[in-house]
């Protein structure tokens, strides 16, 4: 099975489409599709001016958050699949829908720290560079 990613946005003038806001949520949400973050989530995000830490709320749960840059040289893209093939081993084609350069990650009632799995996962990028780089 091969995976193809088509980027039809290469020549787009809309630079914002690759600078979207992304939130990494501390729960599994069984839903896929557009949601109104500006209406239901953003009004309650408060930044602590001294520590830069964020607080928020989702489904009544208290959240602690932090803004995080992607590692140097990396960007994140969002892809969609117009139609998922029925056969399991068929080729897959995805279309680039946008992207982001930084994200906000949220913990459930736990201050962000070096020990958060998402922060630690980024270690791999340095290690991979050391192992596989020139």
């Amino acid at each position, binding site marked *: 099975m091969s*995976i193809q990613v088509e980027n039809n946005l290469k020549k787009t003038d809309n630079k914002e489409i690759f600078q979207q806001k992304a939130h990494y949520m*501390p*729960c*599994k*949400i*069984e*839903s896929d599709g557009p*949601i*109104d973050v500006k*209406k*239901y*989530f953003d*009004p*309650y995000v408060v930044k602590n001016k001294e520590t830069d830490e964020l607080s928020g*709320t*989702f*489904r*009544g*749960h*208290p959240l602690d958050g932090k803004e995080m840059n992607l590692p140097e040289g990396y960007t994140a893209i969002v892809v969609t*699949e117009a139609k998922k093939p029925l056969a399991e081993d068929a080729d*897959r084609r*995805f279309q680039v829908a946008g992207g982001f350069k930084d994200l906000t990650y949220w913990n*459930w*009632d*736990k201050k962000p720290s070096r020990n958060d*799995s998402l922060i*630690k*996962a980024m*270690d*791999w990028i340095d290690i991979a560079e050391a192992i596989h780089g020139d």
Partner: protein
Amino acid sequence: MGSVLQDLQDFIKLRDNFRNFINSSEVPSICKTEPCMIGVDEAGRGPVLGPMVYGVAYCPLSQANVLQNLGCADSKALTEIKRDEIFSNMLTEDNAFKNVGWIADIISPNYISNSMYKRAKHSLNEVSMNSAISLIKKAAEDGANIAEVYVDTVGPPEKYQAKLSEIFPNYKITVAKKADSIYPIVSAASIVAKVTRDHALKVWQFLEGLEMDHTEFGSGYPGDPLTKKFIREQIDNVFGYPLLVRFSWSTAETMLLEKAAICTFEDIDESPKKINMKSISSFFAPKSEDGIKTRKRHKFFEERYLSFDNAFE
């Protein structure tokens, strides 16, 4: 509507309704010298919508008649209009505001949900007790000369009384069921709390942008048909409800389970840890189903939740 109530509404409107805030009178100077009684009561403990409000009222022991003259009696027997009127008089009549001080603690529905949905759950009883304690402390810190404390409770009074006596050893503490109808100072506190809660609902502004007011979402009590309709209809598939709603109420929880996307947070096991005993045979069978020895993922990747799966499945 009188100017006192207008001022109250304006004050509430200026605050963030997803956070707690305090509203209070000045401490009457007579309360700084004369020994005072203070009453504590709450409004809006049961509703699924809106804030819970704790109120205290205090006045000199020698001025109990002021409360009677104001008409402070069992606040449940008073109509909303009557409560508004007594509250207005409490703030404007010479004899009243020179003798009676009050504080209200407006506890936002978001704070209630967030407390009950903490990793280490905080019950509504704890939220309530902390509010009551902080109000008594605040009255004293602001300069009121507290001597006697009267508290209304729905639960068993004994434990509550013991706890308060421990925190405030120098005060004479009375905790009682229906204290609201027995002690006029508790009735006064109850009026402060109820009037504040009523007006907080009246001026509720949805930060989510819903153009709707209390005539449409009702009193907030789960039995109110308007509230029921609101809980049934104002659901966002992912976010659930606007923050007027106490998510931690079973009425809201059940409805979301049924009508919104399922959201699962990390499971916190509060029961003591079981010791996981491996069967002895597990040590001799390091093979997967098809007989090929599987290589265990290194701890480095395990800790970081990194795997080599197909992300597009």
